[in-house]
């Protein structure tokens, strides 16, 4: 196969992929690929967030199974425009980032996977200010384990 043909095929592929690429561009590859909680924070542009009682994580302290851990996060911090969820001991700690606009309240409930017992960290972004809250969730073994 000659070089020109390969290049042409490549160009065609890029053209075909373009619509998807444009859509998928909003996925923060660096932050989601980060292997430490700190790198994940850096990846979403958050330096050292301040602990806040107005950012509330509602979750069970004990999960019978790490495959589904329900977490509810709400922020009472004025001007909150985004909430991120970081699971500190997961191989890739950043689990999700939600951006709220046009009347969406800074609230989300979701189910996440947890590799082991650890802190779940919520981060709220309110303009240039960043806040955080954590909650430890124990992941246990349920059932017969066989």
């Amino acid at each position: 196969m000659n070089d020109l043909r390969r290049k042409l095929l490549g160009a065609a592929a890029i053209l075909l992929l373009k619509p998807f690429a444009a859509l998928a561009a909003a996925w923060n590859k660096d932050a989601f690929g980060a292997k430490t909680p700190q790198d994940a924070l850096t990846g979403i542009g958050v330096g050292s967030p301040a602990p806040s009682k107005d950012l509330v994580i509602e979750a069970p302290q004990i999960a019978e199974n790490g495959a589904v851990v329900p977490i509810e996060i709400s922020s009472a911090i004025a001007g909150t425009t985004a909430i991120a969820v970081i699971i500190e001991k997961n191989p890739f700690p950043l689990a999700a980032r939600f951006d709220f606009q046009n009347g969406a309240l800074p609230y989300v409930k979701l189910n996440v996977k947890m590799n082991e017992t650890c802190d779940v960290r919520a981060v709220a972004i309110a303009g240039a200010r960043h806040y955080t809250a954590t909650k430890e969730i124990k992941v246990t073994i349920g059932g017969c384990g066989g």
Partner: protein
Amino acid sequence: MKFALLSLLALAAPAAWSEPGLQDVEKVLQRDFKPRGQATMDRVRQDGLQRLCTETGNSPPAGVAKALEADQMKSIAFPAGSLVGDWRRGEKIAQGGRGMTWSDKPGAPADGSCYNCHQLSPAEVSYGTLGPSLLGFGKTRGDGADVQHYVYGKIFNAKAYNLCSQMPRLGHSGTLTPEQIKDLVGLLLDPASPVNQ
């Protein structure tokens, strides 16, 4: 009066079916179960102990129980020397729940499923309660030869001590090796084991 008598008769009329006996149940099991992996059909055939415990609702007459417990005791081959193995390995064996099912690889080392029913190390909060808590077991009893002997024997064949115990005969059934049982004895009795902290 007549009406009442009639309905009584109707109740007393022979049912169109008869209550299944133990033999019938075993026939049903033979017909409706199939071997898979290491779970072969010989497992549905009850041994004398299983039969007696089923028939008596786990309360056999004391005399019979004593005799059969003595039989079970004969099945235990106590190794010579110290029976206290490595508690670290014991903790792993106690945590795991694999072994002896049709989905387990035949010949692969099995676990003890201990935490399914017992509390052991205080750090493990997910423990079952079907059996008694064994937290601090060696702390109160020491680790002398008698205690070692009792713990080894109980794990090897719990039925030698209590005929209709719900605890599996982990050594007798071929689930755990003598080495593994020693490691579990270590977990329970070693003063350094987390169980005794």
